[in-house]
């Protein structure tokens, strides 16, 4: 099976819901081919965020991309959001069937 699959990065960002548009727009500008968002609630260093009202809801953003773009997204998050926002990020190696779909288009960035 693994022969057919290419490794890509899955970046998952769990953050306050007011960041949805900012982060997804930035990810696309940086070169991500897409993203997926779902609603979430949770608890962490900033206390309980149970989604009982909009200011208090979290989202879960997933971005499938190659390593070049993953690095840029992590940089963006570190530089722009980590200091002031409620935010957790993790990166997973996943296998995808159509690797070209999740690759930056400019050839200079290809691995």
């Amino acid at each position, binding site marked *: 099976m693994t022969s057919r699959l290419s490794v890509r990065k899955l970046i998952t960002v769990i953050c306050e819901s007011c960041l949805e548009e900012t982060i997804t727009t930035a990810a696309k500008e940086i070169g991500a081919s897409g993203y997926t968002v779902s609603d979430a609630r949770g608890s962490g260093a900033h206390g309980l965020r*149970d989604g009982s*009202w*909009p*200011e*208090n809801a979290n989202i879960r953003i997933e971005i499938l991309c190659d390593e070049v773009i993953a690095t840029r997204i992590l940089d963006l998050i570190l530089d722009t959001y980590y*200091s002031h926002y409620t935010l957790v990020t993790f990166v997973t190696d996943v296998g995808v069937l159509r690797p070209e779909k999740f690759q930056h288009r400019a050839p200079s960035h290809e691995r």
Partner: protein
Amino acid sequence: MSDPVILFFILGVIAGLSRSDLKIPGVLYESLSIFLLLAIGLKGGVALAQNNPGELVAPIVVVTLTAMVVPILAFLIASYGGRYGRADAGALAAHYGSVSVVTFAVASSYLTRLSVPFEGFMSVFLVILEIPGLLIGVALARWSAGNTRWAALMHEIVTGKSIVLLVGGLIIGYVSGEAGLSSITPVFFTLFKGLLAIFLLEMGLVTAGRIADLKKSGAFLITFGVVMPLISASIGIVTASLIDLSVGGATLLATLFASASYIAAPAAIRMAVPEANPSLSIGASLGITFPFNITIGIPLYYAASQWLLGASI
């Protein structure tokens, strides 16, 4: 006997504090707030259609100017009294400079119960007061920072859902008039107070959740949450007498001045002043000022309006 809508708020607070599993689904909250904003806009529009909008220009200018004092005062008090940094003081200024739609709804429900008449165009002030205080708060917070994207911020505030629904409702109500709206009044007017009651139940739950935040924030913030609306309400009543509002209108204007935003302001501040700690300003506005206003504040502002303006009617 108190207004039943307030009892729903208290029920929510008690349920929240006793850690009940009662939860109002987030979607119901959003749906009810869409309804309330539209309904208030429509009601204002119908009232406006019965007036000459031209006559409102002067009062609007006066109210906008005096209302600008509120965020500046809030900023000074928070900076010097509370020793908050520029960002947090600005955020507080933005919240208290803007207005709370639900507090306004509770106040008009209070007056209707007592059969106190008020000017129908008060919801025009509601719309107009939502924005400037917010902008002043952001300006104060970002004075020297310099990299604020004002155009994006203005777009976000002006196209924010509360402005869109309030202004949209106002225009639809104005264009259609009372007769034109008659087919939709069973939803927007007849159901208003019952749905407001359910919304306040949820507000009670949310308020209860904020009380933990407040414990951390300490005595200054709690005092601020009670004193600030008293100061703003006074400015509101004085303004009301300048523009010759009735006692009911003065009560509503005082309430608008006294109320602190917890819908438009938190969202805007989070994007424009991210370094401000949201639990300070939301804690004060939602955890202290909102319950204070709807339970003690409104009757107080009514009494003060009666005392100051009552003779002239």
